[in-house]
């Protein structure tokens, strides 16, 4: 009951503060634009006099190009938005005093944190769904139909990948009262995992491989990266557990 009340409040907040709308529009636009960009990149080059000579070098667009554009654009923006939308989730409430006002009531701190995470899952999940539908439609219209199963799996991996950074930034947001510090940790984690990914033995176990796995599924590869999946889920759970452990001891 309390959990549903809190989740309802968090989802309402996503809508009323226009966070949902922002994420939804950005991802939807990139979902639509990605196949369009892939299809018309040659024409775009031709329309710019300085770029026209290079247009001839571009091979005829294929569905693989459309998928590549979608993954690159949507994934980049989703991670960027994950850091921005999550950074103030707990930090702002601590700083302003709303956390203190609500947590002297019978609202468990675990509920407070988990409801925020699930509201963000809702925002990114629904926005990605809209982006995926738009991308599927335009790809179908401009190229050819994609296989539904692998496409759903790809989007699932993209969402999971984003949630890794949502969870890390949420953890940082419980540690600090400053949004800047929280986003700093989230961005730091992004860089750290990128550096770790340059070491071959570790590379296959990191969240980045989820995107590679999804891309592979779309292009017919059957290469699976289960350790990356397990580690991504592990990072999410560990971040949420850490957030709760830190937050339950915190004086507000």
């Amino acid at each position, binding site marked *: 009951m309390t959990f549903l009340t809190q989740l309802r409040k968090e989802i309402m*907040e996503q809508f*009323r503060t226009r966070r949902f709308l922002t994420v939804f529009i950005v991802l939807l636009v990139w979902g639509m634009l990605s196949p369009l960009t892939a299809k018309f990149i040659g024409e775009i080059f031709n329309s710019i006099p300085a770029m026209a000579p290079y247009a001839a070098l571009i091979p005829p667009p294929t569905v693989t190009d459309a998928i590549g554009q979608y993954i690159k654009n949507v994934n980049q923006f989703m991670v960027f938005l994950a850091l921005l939308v999550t950074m103030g989730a707990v930090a702002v409430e601590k700083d302003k*005093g709303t956390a*203190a*006002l609500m*947590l*002297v009531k019978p*609202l468990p701190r675990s509920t407070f944190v988990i409801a925020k995470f699930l509201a963000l899952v809702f925002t990114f999940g629904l926005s990605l769904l809209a982006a995926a539908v738009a991308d599927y439609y335009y790809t179908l219209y401009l190229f050819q139909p994609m296989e539904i199963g692998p496409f759903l799996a790809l989007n699932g991996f993209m969402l999971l990948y984003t949630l890794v950074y949502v969870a890390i930034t949420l953890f940082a947001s419980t540690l600090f009262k400053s949004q800047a510090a929280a986003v700093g940790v989230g961005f730091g984690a992004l860089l750290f995992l990128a550096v770790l990914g340059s070491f071959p033995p570790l590379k296959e176990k990191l969240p980045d491989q989820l995107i590679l796995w999804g891309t592979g599924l779309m292009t017919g590869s059957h290469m699976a990266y289960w350790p990356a999946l397990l580690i991504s889920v592990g990072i999410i759970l560990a971040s949420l557990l850490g957030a709760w452990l830190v937050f339950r001891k915190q*004086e507000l």
Partner: protein
Amino acid sequence: MTAIITRDLKKFYGSVHALDGLSLTVQPGTVFGFLGPNGAGKTTTIRLLTGLSRPTSGTATVSGVDARQSRKIARIIGYLPEEPAFYRWMTGYEFIDYTARIFHISTGERSRRVKELLELVGLAEAAKRRIGGYSRGMRQRLGIAQALVNQPEVLFLDEPVSALDPTGRKEVLDLIDSLRGKCTVFMSTHILADVERVCDSIGIIDKGKMIVEAPQSELMGRFTIPAIEVEVIAGHEKDLEKWLKSLRNLSWVKNTQVDGTKARLTVKDLEKARKELFHALNTTGLPVQRFEVVTPTLEDIFLQVINGKGGAK
């Protein structure tokens, strides 16, 4: 059961001793005024009693529940912080409704209570407006409404009227007054007139320690100044001074002071002084404008206590 008990409560932030052995007792159903200068430890005390903060040492119970058991405490208290912060995107109605849901109040009861509380604090008309557009006074009143949602046994109010205009202040003080007997109110403030008006008992804290704690009437009695003030109509200052000189050698007069048209006599026996002085005044024919036995205001007592002139608890 005693509403609030703290024993040797301490809270240190590094080398800063925010609370340094605070002991107090608040009886149930009373309105307790918690006074002290800025930085004395009033808010820290409330934070410890509401479970928002943990003591370095000492004990605190609220309605018999250890204040460190924040989950149990949460069900029996109401809390209004000094500057209540809200979700600006919510309406007043939504916020009180959300608070009531947290307390698991059933749907029908919730709707009735939310409307009742908004009516009580004078926000019924603004209930559908977003909190972001509320004035500071309106937010303070909304804060009082949310603190009353669960009909708390103990209500903690940190400076509840500091943001309100005179009308709002009167309304909130009347509201606090009406809660007497229904719940215990623990109210921190620096507005002494408000404490004088609504509080049954008073605690004065300074540098993290309780300096004085007593029922208001007892405190007033304890700090009574045995003095009488006489004021005459302008133009009779010299006559007043001359008359005062003639009183100096009387056995019951301790000290005299004159300031223009006002004279103050500090006396040894207030009852005797009252009778004899009144008689003496009649015989002089001085045009008296005011004759008053000086009663200390809470401000006098507060200043005496804080300046170290007051008696210990």
